[in-house]
Each structure stands twice: as structure tokens, then as C-alpha cells.
């Protein structure tokens, strides 16, 4: 997946999402914005492996991966200072306290919001 020119300018974005249709849709969006897609990963294991193997500038992280919660990976990413944002159907009040204020996009994801959030994520990093 080769990125084109765009606001993400070749930044590598890892997508962690268990539904194929949603993952491919996100990938399309990232590529449209000029980023390079890493993954997508369906499980925490796959995602952790990718993060360990390849440089990643940003992560889009679905919280519920077919019943598996993504918070352990979120902690690892935060520790390694990899910028990420949650994509989820959950409301804030049901999330654990520590993640309640973390950047989050509600599903279904609005492409414009996704763009703004991704750009913000990459800019904050640099």
C-alpha cells in the first residue's frame, strides 16, 4: 500500500480493527490522506507483533476486538509514546477511568473527523 501525497505524507499508521469491512475502509482513508497503512491487525497479538517489528507513527485502535479489549496494547503504546486514538462504540462513562479522557472517535467514524484526528496525532508527535 503506497501512500500518495497528502496531509499524512508517508506517515505509517497501524490499524487495529477486527472487522474486515471497517479495517479496509480505514485503510482506504489513511491512504487517501497520504499515509502508509501498517496491518491492518485483527487481534492484539498481531498488532503487538507489528508494533515491535515496524516503525509506527500513529495507531487507530478499536477497543473491542471480537471480545478482546485493547487496553493492554494501549498501555504499551502509551509507554512507548506512540500516538494513538481509540475507535469505539462505547460511551466515555463505560470506559475505565484512565482512558476516559484519551482521544477517541465514535463509530461509525466520520471521515472528516478521522482526518482531523489523524493529522492532529501525527503533528503532535512531530
Amino acid at each position, binding site marked *: 500500500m503506497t501512500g500518495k501525497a497528502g496531509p499524512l505524507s508517508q506517515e505509517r499508521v497501524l490499524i487495529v480493527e*477486527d*472487522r474486515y469491512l471497517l479495517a479496509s475502509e480505514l485503510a482506504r482513508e489513511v491512504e487517501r490522506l497520504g499515509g502508509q497503512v501498517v496491518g491492518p491487525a485483527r487481534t492484539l497479538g498481531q498488532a503487538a507483533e507489528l508494533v515491535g517489528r515496524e516503525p509506527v507513527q500513529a495507531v487507530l485502535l478499536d477497543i473491542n476486538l471480537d471480545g478482546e479489549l485493547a487496553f493492554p496494547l494501549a498501555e504499551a503504546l502509551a509507554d512507548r509514546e506512540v500516538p494513538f486514538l481509540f475507535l469505539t*462504540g462505547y460511551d466515555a462513562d463505560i470506559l475505565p477511568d484512565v482512558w476516559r479522557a484519551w482521544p477517541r472517535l465514535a463509530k461509525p467514524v466520520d471521515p472528516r473527523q478521522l482526518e482531523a484526528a489523524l493529522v492532529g496525532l501525527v503533528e503532535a508527535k512531530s
Partner: protein
Amino acid sequence: MVANDTGQGGIGAADGPRPEPSPLYDYIRNLEAELAVARGRLQVTIEELESANQELKASNEEYLLINEELQSANGELETSQTELRALNEELKTVNGELAQRIGELRRANSDLKNLMESTQIATIFLDNALTLRSFTPATWQVFHLIDSDIGRPIAHFTAQVQYPELLDDARHVLKSLAQVEREVAGRQDDRRFLVRVLPYRSIDNVVAGVVVTFMDISTAARAEAALRSSERRLSEAQRLAGVGVWEWNLDTDERWWSAGAYQLWGVPPSGPQDRPLPIHPDDGRQVAADHERARRTGELDHEWRVLRPDGSMRWLAAKGRIESSPGSRRMLGVIQDITERKQTETRLKMLLGELQHRVRNILSVVRSIVDRTVRSSSGLEELSAHLTGRLDALARTQGVFARTGDAAVELEELIREELVAVAARDDQMSLRGPALRLRRQAAETLALAIHELCTNAVKYGALSEPAGRLDVSWRVFDGDGGRRLSLEWCESGVRALDVRPSHRGFGRELIERGLPYELDASTTLEFAMGGVRALIELPLSDKIAELGAPASAPPESGAHEALQ
């Protein structure tokens, strides 16, 4: 006499007898004779006088004697008189006392009469023969007696209470001198009387009959019965509701708990001051703060956890309000086990989370399907047909799960639903395979893929012409790393399969990329002679299918509990 004596002596002594007779002499002789006579007489008289004198003397002495006796008698009389006077005094005193006693007695009698007339207690006095001696006006409620009935046997009267044992009781009391007490009911109403039969003792402690009192305790009995049933209802309600009652004296800090409250605490009933209540260590400070606030505001409403001695953890809630009475400030309230409510709240929150997740995920999928269908359709008609079919397929799977409420769905049911939706005829198809229950996400994805195969078959393949035939078969087998599902979609009898999709359509992408991504499946899709042949093979992990015990919990719920 003295004069006589002197005259006589003078003449006799001075003159003797004289010799010359003369007249004078004669005269003198006469005189002398007369004198002698007179003297004799005088002598007699003197003698008589002397004797009289003597007698007088004796008399006088007697008089003296009598006088003395009289004097002595007089003295005695005086003494008697004094005694009589004293006696009289005493009698006066006694009389006064008697009058006082009589006055007291009259008062006492009057008091007694007033008491008898004013008392609401029906009382009858019977003598030893059980005839009526007296009764109080209040007796009217029990016996209809009038004053003229006094003296008649009590057995002649009918009581207004159900008390046939009256005569037996009275006789028994007369014999044993012990009192009898019993409760009797009214004859025609629901009044109740407390009857006491006592021996009648006179002042000198002689038993002279019996006293029977009838005390109307209807009000008290009714109140007591009402109180009893109210208390029973209250305690039953407390028991059923799992509610305990408590009281807290804010001045002395003393606390009282009902038996039910102790049960909620999980400790045996005893003075709660004696032992600390098993408040969860994490909640101790909050509870103390709540109590402090309750002291200020006069109202308590809080929830906390207890760690019961048996190791179980329960949620309790207490509500209370201050009750100020002069001299003491007390808070009265209830305590309740709200563990189930808390668990339900947690579960509801969990289910709400699950619902949010599913709804938004499925909306995301819908949106993605719409986008893709729009991108791949050449016209509105095609767009509409494809979109409707796909959304319907999605809806059907949702419907199956919603209808059964199960966490899994039979593979055969899932395939059949899709075939029914495209109106495939039973005589041109067969479904063969073992029972297999697929979990929600796998079922959703697989159903979408089957739907694409169905619509393709209806449009171009086996279901598009009468001679076409569709055989769907699947099997479960043990492969590397566990059990696997192999599903074959085999169309035959299609005369000309001239429409080979040149671009990667939605269905093809789903089968060739979506299934491998989501289910780790390996898939082949062939447009061979005679029809389409698709082969889908995937590992039956716990997340994909319900293996073994069908009652195992769906993985989602595990995840959501972790979310809490």
C-alpha cells in the same frame, strides 16, 4: 336564878326568928311560907332544869357525834363527786371520738358509694348463698339488674356475656378462697371482658361471699390484636423485603438494630457497640463521613459494602431521618441489602456497553457496505438491488440472534435463511452437514458471504435456470491446531457461465479477503464449467463456534466484565 339565889341568901342570913307577934309578923310568916314553897318549887325546878340540862348535854354530845358523821359523809360525797366529774370528762372525750368516727365512716361510706357509682367496672357482690347483695351501676353491661333484685339468687339472672361457669367459679372461690380470673366474650357482640372472682372478706377477715368484677377490655383487646397483627405484618414485610430497622441515639451514640438488620450485617444479634460491624475496609471512611453529615443534616441516605464473617461481600443501603423529641435526638431508619440491585446495575451497564458496541459496529458495517455498493454499482437500480439484498442479509442474521436470544446460530439455519431469501426451490438444492453453532460475529460475516454466493447464483448460476442444481455441504474435522470447518458450495448444471466477474466485486472480496481476515479462513472461488464452486475452510476457535458445552458464556460478556 342568880337573882333568886342572892335574894334568898340575904334575907335568911341577916335575920333570925323574932319574939314579938305582930301583924307584920304574920305577914312575914306568910311570906316566908310562901317563900319556902317557892323555894321547894324552885328546887324542883332547879332539879328539873338540871336534869333537862343533863339531857341537853347528852343530846348535844349526840349532835356532835352526828355532826362528825355527817362531816365524814360529806367528805365522801365530795370525793365521789370528783370522780364522777372525771368520768364525765372521759365520757365526753369518748363521745367526741365516736362522733368523729361516725363522720369518717359517713365519708367513707359516701366515697364508697361514689366509687361504686362512678366505676366503669361491673361489680357484683354475692353472699355465701350466692344471692345478690350489691352491684355497681356499670353492671348493666353484664347483668340487667335493678335495686329490687337485691336479695335474689344470681342464678336467676341471665348474663349478657358467655360465662356459664359463673356459679361454679363463685363456689370454687368460696371453698378455696383463691381468686379466679378468666376472659369471656360478649353474647351478641365482639366485646371482651376480664372476669375476676374474689372472696369477699369482712373487716374481721371473715369470708362473707364473693365479689365478681367484669372489666370491659374490648378496646384494649382490639388494640392489642390490631397491634399484634400490625407488628406481624410489619415484621413479615421486613422479612420479605429483606429490610432491617435501626435506631441511633445521637446524644449517647447508642445504636439498636432489629434481628433482620443483624442478618443483613451477617453477624449474630448482640450489642453492636461490643463488636465492630464488618464494614468493607475501603468504605469505612465514607461511612463515617456519611454519619457525620447525617448528624448535621438530620437525614441519612447512603450505600456501602460489608465483608461478612463468612467471607461474602454484600452491598447495604441505609435510609434514616431524625426524630426529635424533647430531651433526645434519635435517628430512625431502615437498612436493606441492595447487592442484587448493584449487580443488576453493573450487568445493565455492561449490557448497555455491549449494545452500544454492537449497534455502532453494525452501523459502521452498514456504512461500509453502502460505500462499497455505491462505488461498485453502475446504476441506481443495481445499487438499490444490491444494497437492499446486503442490508437484508445483515438484518436476517441480526434477526436470528434477536429472535432466539442465543449467543450462537446454527450454520444450516443461516444458509437456509439466505436461500429462502432468494426463493430457491427445495428440489434444486441440498444442504448437508453436521450441527454447528456459530457465534455472532462469525455468523454475520459468513452470512454476508453466503448471501453474495446466493445472489450470484440467482443472477448467473445454478438458481438462474431450471436445470441448475446447488449442493452445499460441510464437515467438521480435526486438523492441525484443532477442529476445522470445511464448507463447499457447489453449483452444477449451468449451461453457460459466460459472465465471469472481471473486477473484484463485493462478494468476491468478502470471500477472498474478508473471510481470511476475520476468520483465518482459506478460501477458493472457482467459476468452473457447470457453475460456481467455492471452498471455505476455517479453524473452529472458541470465538467462531460454540464447541463442547453449549452453555458456555459468549466471549463478549467476558470482555465487558473486564471493562468494568
